[in-house]
């Protein structure tokens, strides 16, 4: 089976790499006396990483490579299909809709989350009475399992749920929110609600790292609060920006589970996302299309992340 072939191939790659390590190690031993610290120390880094790397290769990279392989072959027969899967996927209207929705979801919710949590983190870090309580309160939504969240949304946003009851009191007619375009807003709200606490904590940790003297110096020089924020605080936070953005991106995938539990396989158009599509393709055994779609969207996402890395991680 070609899966074994891939595995053999990867094994060969790993073995080749091990050759490299051995070469490096012997070289370093040779140079050890000459070098004073420096490069020889770096092999320690490898030692720290290797066990984890082995596991990652086995349980993550291998399946990943298999998925990539499936993007190029037909589902059942395994014959090579070149780029036809990709062509099919790109021409599929459902894929275009799902991709657009997913991009929209990420493009809206991640910035909102990152900015809002930063806005909240600044005063909380400076210190407010009862700050611990606020922080704990913000963290709690993350603990609630998806099934309970779904129960909640059903109780609140259904046609006869709490929200409509509330609106009824004011004479505003309500509707079945999850099945209209508002579903998108609900999902964004749910996402921000869940992840706010954690992002705030991470921002606070990052903010703590900025030495207070810099702020003091700027204030003495007469700069206003906002100027200080934009010119001093933010540039020091780029690394945290990267971390929190990547984390938020990852978490935005998880929104799918709630959307799925509430609205099923074919939700309202505004929240029909790539994962819905992949799910449905898998149900119909269209694994080749699913793999092609996944490879495409994964590549786009990776490109985005590497862009962030270049800008914010420096080096």
């Amino acid at each position: 089976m070609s899966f074994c072939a891939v595995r053999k191939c990867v094994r060969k790659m790993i073995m080749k790499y091990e050759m490299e390590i051995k070469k490096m190690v012997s070289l370093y031993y040779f140079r050890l006396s000459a070098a004073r610290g420096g490069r020889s120390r770096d092999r320690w880094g490898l030692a720290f990483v290797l066990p984890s790397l082995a596991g990652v290769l086995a349980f993550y990279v291998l399946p990943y490579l298999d998925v990539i392989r499936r993007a190029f072959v037909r589902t059942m027969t395994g014959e090579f299909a070149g780029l036809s899967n990709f062509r099919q996927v790109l021409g599929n209207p459902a894929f275009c809709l799902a991709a657009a929705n997913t991009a929209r979801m990420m493009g809206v919710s991640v910035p909102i989350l990152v900015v809002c949590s930063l806005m909240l983190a600044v005063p909380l870090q400076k210190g407010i009475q009862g700050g611990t309580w606020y922080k704990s309160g913000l963290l709690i939504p993350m603990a609630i399992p998806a099934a309970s969240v779904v129960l909640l949304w059903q109780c609140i946003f259904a046609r006869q749920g709490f929200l409509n009851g509330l609106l009824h009191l004011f004479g505003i007619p309500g509707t079945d929110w999850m099945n209209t375009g508002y579903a998108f807003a609900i999902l964004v709200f749910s996402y921000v609600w869940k992840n706010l606490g954690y992002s705030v904590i991470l921002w606070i940790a990052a903010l703590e790292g900025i030495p207070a003297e810099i702020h003091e110096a700027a204030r003495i020089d007469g700069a206003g609060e906002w100027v200080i924020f934009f010119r001093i605080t933010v540039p020091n936070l780029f690394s945290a920006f990267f971390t929190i953005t990547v984390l938020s991106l990852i978490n935005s995938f998880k929104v799918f589970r709630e959307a799925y539990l509430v609205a099923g396989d074919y939700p309202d158009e505004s929240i029909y996302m790539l994962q819905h599509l992949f799910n449905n393709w898998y149900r119909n055994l269209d694994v080749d299309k699913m793999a092609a779609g996944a490879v495409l969207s994964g590549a786009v996402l990776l490109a985005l992340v590497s862009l962030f890395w270049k800008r914010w991680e420096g080096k």
Partner: protein
Amino acid sequence: MRFKKGHVILRVFLGVLAFVCCYPIIFLLTGAFMGQGEAAENLRPVFAGGEGFAAWSLIPFQPTFRSCVELIFDTPDFFVMFWNSMKITGGILAGQALFGIPAAWGFARYRFRFHRGLFFLYIAMMMMPFQVMMLSDYLVIKQMNLMDTMGAILLPGIFSTLPVFIICQFFKEIPEELLEAARIDGAGEGDIFFRVGLPLGKAGIISAMVLQFLECWNMLEQPMAFFKTPSLWPLSMFQPQITAETAGTAFAASVFALLPAIWVFLAGHEFLEQGIQGYYSRGSASAGRHTG
């Protein structure tokens, strides 16, 4: 502080926000303690159709432990599942600590060949949703004969790259001078990791562990795909059909599933606070502190 008025507004705003975030918990709690009938009555419009709107009272009319009791004593599966969840979560967290933390250290502080490429690889591995990987994961696990054992969930979970990423970002913040100082004092790399890196990186480790705890506790797709025998199922799979009648049990189940998470949060929070205070109070106030 400067703007008293601004402060009050801020506090009110934060208070409202915190309430909005916490209200669901109150909702679940009251629901768990309502009698079956009351919960059914309140939620009937939503689940069984009919007229009117769903109602809720902050304090249940007839508080009762019945739902909880039924859950604990009448559903024997519940405890087996609870224990399974514990095993899975504990196992994965332990493994991640064992393998992931050193890896994060390695990526953060050392410039070995390919370190950038491998780190990028780690990031890439975080990005694939499970639906897509499911079949390939299944094949790998089948090849290793781990199907229908705890290992099928534990091993991939242990090698998850997300905690490595988070912890690495925190390890990067540690000033290099501290490490140099330790090296000059004659410490080996391993010592440095244990004595300097770990304590200073506590904030990151705790953050990552808390996040991972939640993820493992609520893991749904993997157990569904890889566990065939019901005796292995974790708690997240205990989702009774939610109708108006079983709403009470559903609430009670949610509360029970929540409790360990909340406990971890509250406990972890303390450590987190300490950690954050900790590593920033060390080290001197030198300008070049941030090595990014």
